């Protein structure tokens, strides 16, 4: 575990010195200001509108950084040849991948939680009450991003960053397609019905990213049950473990 933590520290140090850190801070400030701007219009239910808009933006941001960082992490190390001295150490490739993922996950979680805190502050400023539930929502967005990062990392162990990013985005989109959408776009007979069947079949073996999106429950003040949240956490961790295991199998026999 010590080796993985050392790689995680290396990854975190590298990420913290990229311009991305400032982009995250800027985005957090924007999220904190959005409720004030929406509030300025004075429309009814502006608190809910603010939460809805901010949580939607947070979801996109989480997906964006997960894809961007995870797609470039391993191929970047291989391309720049910075991976050679690391893997020549008495450390397995699995430990390297786990370390890489832990570093990415820590960065993604930190960034998303920072933005979540900015949303809570922004919404709290207009409603005069801090809503801790927004942080729970942000934490689940972070978990969703980490699952997506693990999926991307799996592709990135065998392909380049662009292909890995596109493949992971495709997984995210297909997994998020509702039955109604599939029926709407692929309605018909012959090839179309076969395509619809295929998409539905593929969907069943992909992670369900939508379950992490608690926007509706947060916007409409529905209760968040601890058991449900724990089940979501276990579901996310199971997917992360599975993806890392598969990534280890792929990367373990890959010539560098």
């Amino acid at each position, binding site marked *: 575990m*010590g*080796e993985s933590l050392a790689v995680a520290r290396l990854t975190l*140090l590298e990420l913290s010195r990229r311009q991305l850190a400032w982009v995250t801070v800027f985005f957090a400030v924007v999220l904190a200001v959005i409720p004030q701007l929406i509030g300025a219009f004075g429309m009814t239910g502006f608190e809910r509108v603010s939460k809805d808009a901010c949580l939607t933006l947070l979801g996109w941001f989480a997906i964006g950084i997960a894809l961007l960082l995870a797609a470039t992490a391993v191929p970047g190390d291989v391309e720049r040849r910075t991976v*050679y*001295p690391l893997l*020549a*150490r008495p450390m397995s490739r699995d430990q390297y991948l786990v370390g890489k993922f832990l570093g990415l996950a820590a960065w993604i979680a930190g960034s998303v939680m920072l933005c979540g805190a900015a949303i809570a502050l922004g919404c709290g400023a207009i409603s005069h009450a801090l809503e801790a539930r927004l942080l729970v929502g942000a934490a689940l967005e972070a978990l969703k991003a980490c699952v997506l990062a693990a999926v991307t990392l799996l592709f990135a162990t065998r392909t380049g960053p662009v292909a890995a990013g596109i493949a992971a985005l495709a997984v995210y989109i297909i997994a998020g397609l509702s039955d109604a959408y599939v029926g709407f776009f692929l309605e018909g007979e012959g090839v179309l019905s076969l395509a619809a069947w295929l998409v539905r079949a593929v969907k069943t073996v992909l992670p369900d990213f939508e379950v992490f999106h608690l926007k509706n429950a947060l916007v409409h003040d529905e209760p968040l049950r601890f058991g449900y949240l724990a089940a979501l956490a276990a579901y996310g961790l199971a997917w992360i473990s599975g993806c890392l295991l598969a990534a280890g199998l792929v990367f373990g026999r890959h*010539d560098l």
Partner: protein
Amino acid sequence: MTPIQVSGLKKNYGSRVALRGIDFEVSAGDVFGFIGPNGAGKSTTIKILCGLVFPTAGSARIQGHPCGSREARRGMAYLPELPAWPESLTLRELLEIHARLAGISDRRRCSDALEQVGLGPRANSRVRELSKGMLQRFGLAQALLAEPSLLVLDEPASGLDPVAQKDLKDVLADLRARGVTVFFSSHVLTDVERMCDRIAILHGGKLLACAPMRDMLQPTDDLAVRFRGGDFLRARLEKMAAVRSDGADWVVDVGRAAVNEAVDAIRAEHGDLLEVTPRRRSLEEAYFGLLAGAEAVA
């Protein structure tokens, strides 16, 4: 335990054959030179030794353990050709991470390793602030961090200026004196000739030779006559054979039948005869002779 043992090693990248079944051994305490033209398979062999590339057939063992295993990598260190490091980190941060990966808990080892390669004052500099030579020295520092018994270097002199090359040679000489086994690839044949106990010559994925350096540098039938004298003497000897300079001296290589004639000429022109020794083949001659032979067969 034999530090490196390679047997029937083959590697194909798709349809391209990089190694065609090579065998060699490196003994403990040896400085072993691995030479060959570009594309000969040197880096592939080194990457296999370090577990970065997997062989198609054959085996490679480090201290008796299969290459790539954690045990094999425990006592060895590797410096890749033109090593790259995360640019935003400081030297100290990077070394601390490598120390942790090597299982070293004593942080002073990082400072010591930096001092050893003359980068102590730059410990807090970021990698991006270093010159090429400094990067190579830093690479050596990370390799020496765990005090390895086997050091594997891929073209360590690549891109270094003469001062940095001399520093590198000094470090390697120091390691040799401490009994560390050093395996390195290089294109600088004079360095290999000077530093190595044994060498292997690789060409087109085949091992052309693997022998102690003294066997590669066999005496020839010629004698080397070393002398000092003026231009007139040199011009006179040039008529017998090519005269080359060696520092302040001149050296002419002549056959045994002509040696008396050369010595007489030096005396007649009031030159200083310094020594007459059997001429040894240089590594360069041996290398190009083997390559020419291999290309003729191909």
